[in-house]
């Protein structure tokens, strides 16, 4: 085991995969000489050369489109979108091409592509360096969307994504990059895509979250235990699509109460689908309303700290809603 933060876990995994398989190439803006703006590919250009570490023109649709071509012709590209906020020009290539190629060709072609995209707020990123984009893509069959919250899951899910025969949108929460550290196994290990994880066992209520919000939920759950004597089970969604309904429903059926937390705009967010799933499948196991905590329906968190804080759910706000549900 080695203690790593999220960035290091991602970098080390990518490094091991590139060392182990010549088909793996990385491409994106500033991934070469600069080593990525978050330094995920630091040192890669020196080790692997510019054929495998490709500084692309500043064109997101082109990055994804070129990577799709590579993936259809024997390579395993890992494309980096510098910030998830900039992924929108590539929407068509991701949604109409990568996600549909296997289906539309009746299984004749596949796109083993990973698109890494740092997302999320809490880093003074304002309108265009803070966005959550998972809901747009979680809606698309043929595309897998993962959002690990911890270094171990980031490493294991990235490895699984690179080995996956289908396109995977790999979302990295920027605030967790250097904030979250843990011991990560040294031997290569996959975390299966499509499996949620119970990060904290509990018996009184279930809290479902992912990304940065997971950590706020864990903190709030500790406080709830301390101050209220209520035990919250915290489920880390990890994969937005395909959603692990069984793990989420299993926990809700056990505790009888459910709350879903996400930092994206509340309306039509990924958490809305989770709430709907619980409402459809576990209604008669519930002893209280399903609560939902999400970002407000305004276009973004502001650059000014008070505006950013006003947008982002935090441990305090989550705690208050958890207590409300626990007392219900």
């Amino acid at each position, binding site marked *: 085991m080695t203690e790593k933060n999220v960035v290091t876990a991602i970098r080390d995994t990518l490094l091991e995969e590139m060392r182990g398989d010549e088909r793996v190439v990385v491409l994106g803006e500033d991934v070469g000489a600069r080593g990525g703006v978050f330094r995920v590919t630091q040192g890669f250009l020196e080790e692997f050369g510019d054929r495998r570490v490709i500084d692309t023109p500043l064109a997101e*649709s*082109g990055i994804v489109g070129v990577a799709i071509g590579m993936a259809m012709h024997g390579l395993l590209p890992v494309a980096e979108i510098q910030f998830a906020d900039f992924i929108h020009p590539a929407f068509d290539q991701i949604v109409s091409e990568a996600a549909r190629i296997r289906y*539309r060709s009746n299984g004749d072609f596949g796109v083993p592509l990973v698109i890494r995209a740092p997302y999320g707020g809490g880093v003074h990123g304002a309108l265009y360096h803070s966005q959550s984009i998972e809901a747009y893509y979680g809606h698309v069959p043929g595309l897998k969307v993962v959002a690990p919250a911890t270094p171990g899951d980031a490493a294991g899910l990235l490895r699984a994504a690179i080995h996956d025969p289908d396109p995977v949108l790999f979302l990295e929460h920027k605030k967790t990059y250097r904030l979250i550290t843990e011991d990560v196994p040294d031997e290569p290990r996959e975390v299966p895509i499509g499996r949620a994880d119970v990060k904290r066992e509990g018996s009184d209520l279930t809290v479902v979250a992912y990304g940065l919000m997971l950590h706020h939920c864990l903190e709030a759950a500790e406080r709830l235990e301390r101050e209220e004597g209520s035990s919250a089970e915290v489920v880390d969604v990890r994969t937005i699509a395909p959603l692990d309904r069984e793990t989420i429903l299993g926990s809700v059926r056990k505790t009888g109460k459910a709350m879903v937390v996400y930092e994206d705009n509340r309306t039509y967010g990924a958490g809305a689908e989770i709430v709907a799933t619980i409402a459809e499948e576990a209604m008669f196991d519930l002893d209280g309303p399903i609560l939902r905590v999400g970002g407000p329906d305004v276009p973004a968190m502001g650059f000014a700290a008070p505006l950013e804080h006003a947008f982002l759910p935090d441990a305090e706000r989550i705690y208050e809603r958890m207590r409300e549900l626990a007392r219900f």
Partner: protein
Amino acid sequence: MATRVTPAAHEELGLSPDDLVRMYRLMVTARLCDEAAFRLNRQGKAPFVIPVSGHEGCQVGTAWAFRSGQDIWLPYYRDLAVVLVAGMTPYEVFLGVFAKADDPCSGGRQMPAHWGSRRLGIITGSSPIATQVPHAAGIAYAAMYRGEDAVVGCWFGDGATSEGDWHEGLNFAGIHRLPVVFICENNRYAISVHQSKQMAVEDVAVRAEGYGFPGVVVDGNDVLACYRAAREAVERARAGQGPTLIECKTYRFHSHTSDDDDRTYRSREEVEEAKHRDPLLRFAAYLKEHGVLEDRAAEELREEVRGEVEEAIDRAWQAPDPDPATLGRHVFAEDGR
């Protein structure tokens, strides 16, 4: 300035009389498939068809420069003749027209003419325009990376050149000097929008200069001139000298699709005038002039192809439809990895 490709005699291009007849035969096949598909559409047997007529010369001419089984093809939806050169059969084409289970492109999932076949090296295509252009660049990159002796052909219409993906694909290909040939079939209309409202330049080919590789203009109704342009481009690509943009000036004789009505945007006089430059008539005249195919032999060939197409249609019509139970298949890989 884009280079203008001058006509050449077939001997100069290394084409035998036999090659010429095979090329002509494919052009005739495309034309007859087209006519039959429209007839089937009007009979209510084919919900939607996309015509090729008028483009057969530039399609067969350019596609002929590529090697089946080695090179990679990224056609767009009008490229019936390109995929015939790549090895698709009229039977397979009509399996697609009728959306049958054995349609090699999509098993009846896509609209007709959304070509694809891994076996033939034809990359699956979609309806959004120019999305295949960055794919072509990526495939060419992968081919070069893997040390393959493959050249990628990427076809599109004049409207495609306005898309961001078109620019992004050509730019990437230019930067890495990739083995790819970009072929614009410029018929002057993107559905109804005339070229003058699509771009401020007369020749699409001049844009190649902005990507650091040659652009050439060729008479798209002259199959041999198109072959000449493509052969030179493919040779350059195979020799590691990078991409070429070829612009074939041509015309589409019918509406954009069976659901379009070109009378709303083109005069009949313009269309009739363009038909005087029909690539089939021109090539037939060339073949006759060079003693390759006399009128009678050309007529026999045409009837033979007509019989083949009719037989293909009958067979395809009777083929099984897709099973609704397969709707959920191939969302993700079925064999895990």
